[in-house]
């Protein structure tokens, strides 16, 4: 597997505000990544830096082995679907697609046409007359049909209803299977995408908090409840994230996967073990001041 993006000690500071700080990671070819984090965590800034829409304060970026700035070889292979893309006032849907076709060498017009139909987007409609959801659908269509080797989706579905979002996920998976590429999906709807993304990058306060395979994170945080003594027996030695007590019953959320033997033991002790979803895990890790939270490396230990 080839590495196609390498980021080393990246920082971006605006006047008095640190948007990104000490961020290092790499992206492997042909994987779907989830870029997660709260509003203002630095996700969009990171994507802007990777797509040469902004300059880093310090640190290094290599995309396809090269610096992306003013670099046709890199940018022709990159597609960035922004949260609120603006289009020229007089543009129609068809114009936007034609422009995208000129910019993306892998563009598939037949795929774009079928997506237009499925998302029920009229090609003659003026872009400025589109509803919020239709505008998002246009971005999604461009992102999918571009088939760019490196595709970024930044919160691509403002205003998209559940049906349209599922349509997007299904097409992303199907087309990814046929035409593998690297996709970075930035989103708050973590539960919806947790089965789609192979790897998680979690950013908080401009720092990289998690850089781990999604499957490794599954079941990494569990809630154990039942008789106090039994709960203690199972959870002792694990980092407690949350806990409460009601009479003789305890409910404790801990970090650290239970082994199959421990699960059996827990069941034998009459305990309930619930898995904390990826979304809840992210919430647990990114609530609070952030300063006391461990970095990705510490977490991996």
């Amino acid at each position, binding site marked *: 597997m080839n590495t196609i993006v390498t980021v080393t000690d990246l920082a971006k500071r605006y006047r008095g505000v640190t948007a990104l700080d000490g961020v290092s990671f790499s992206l492997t070819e042909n*994987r*779907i990544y989830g870029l997660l984090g709260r509003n203002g965590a630095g996700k969009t800034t990171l994507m802007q830096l990777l797509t040469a829409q902004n300059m880093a304060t310090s640190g290094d970026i290599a995309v396809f082995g090269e610096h992306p700035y003013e670099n046709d070889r890199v940018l022709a292979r990159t597609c960035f679907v922004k949260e609120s893309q603006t289009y020229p006032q007089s543009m129609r849907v068809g114009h936007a697609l034609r422009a995208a076709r000129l910019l993306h060498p892998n563009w598939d017009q037949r795929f774009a046409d079928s997506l237009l139909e499925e998302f029920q987007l009229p090609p003659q409609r003026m872009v400025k007359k589109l509803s919020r959801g239709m505008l998002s659908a246009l971005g999604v269509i461009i992102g999918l049909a571009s088939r760019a080797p490196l595709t970024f989706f930044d919160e691509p579905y403002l205003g998209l209803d559940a049906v349209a979002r599922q349509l997007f*996920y*299904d097409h992303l*998976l*199907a087309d*990814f*299977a*046929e035409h593998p590429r690297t996709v970075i999906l930035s989103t708050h709807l973590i539960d919806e995408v947790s*089965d*789609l*993304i*192979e790897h998680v990058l979690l950013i908080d306060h401009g720092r990289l908090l998690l850089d781990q395979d*999604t*499957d*490794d994170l*599954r*079941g990494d945080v*569990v809630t154990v409840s039942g008789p106090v003594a039994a709960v203690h027996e199972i959870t002792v030695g694990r980092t407690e994230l949350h806990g409460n007590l009601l009479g003789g019953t305890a409910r404790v959320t801990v970090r650290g*996967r*239970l082994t199959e033997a421990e699960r*059996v033991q827990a*069941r*034998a*002790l*009459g305990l309930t*073990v619930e*898995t904390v979803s990826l979304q809840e895990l992210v919430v647990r890790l990114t609530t609070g001041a952030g300063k006391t939270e461990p970095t990705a490396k510490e977490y991996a230990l």
Partner: protein
Amino acid sequence: MDDGRPIFLQIAELLENSILDGSLIEDTQVPSTNELAAFHRINPATAAKGVNQLVDDGTLYKKRGIGMFVAPGARERLRGRRREEFARQYVQPLLAEARKLGIDPTELKKMIDTWEERR
């Protein structure tokens, strides 16, 4: 897909279940990773990891350019392995719950017999 275990393990187990219940018989082709990914709405790489685990432990074999097939004897081997797990996964918790309710082993055995007759 849910429960706390990695999705690739759940995919492997689903295929094992189909082999155990006889819906996937020996030397038949199993669904491709892309079919599994689309059906379960999961990442194709994750589906591939589950399938590959079954190839590694000899449950499936690969026909180059065609796909994955159920290995001869896979069902028997799976049955043996699952039987070993059965006691730990089901009997132990059953006894624990029975103890909590004050059901002694003799009574429990009688209950099992009664339910088996009703079936």
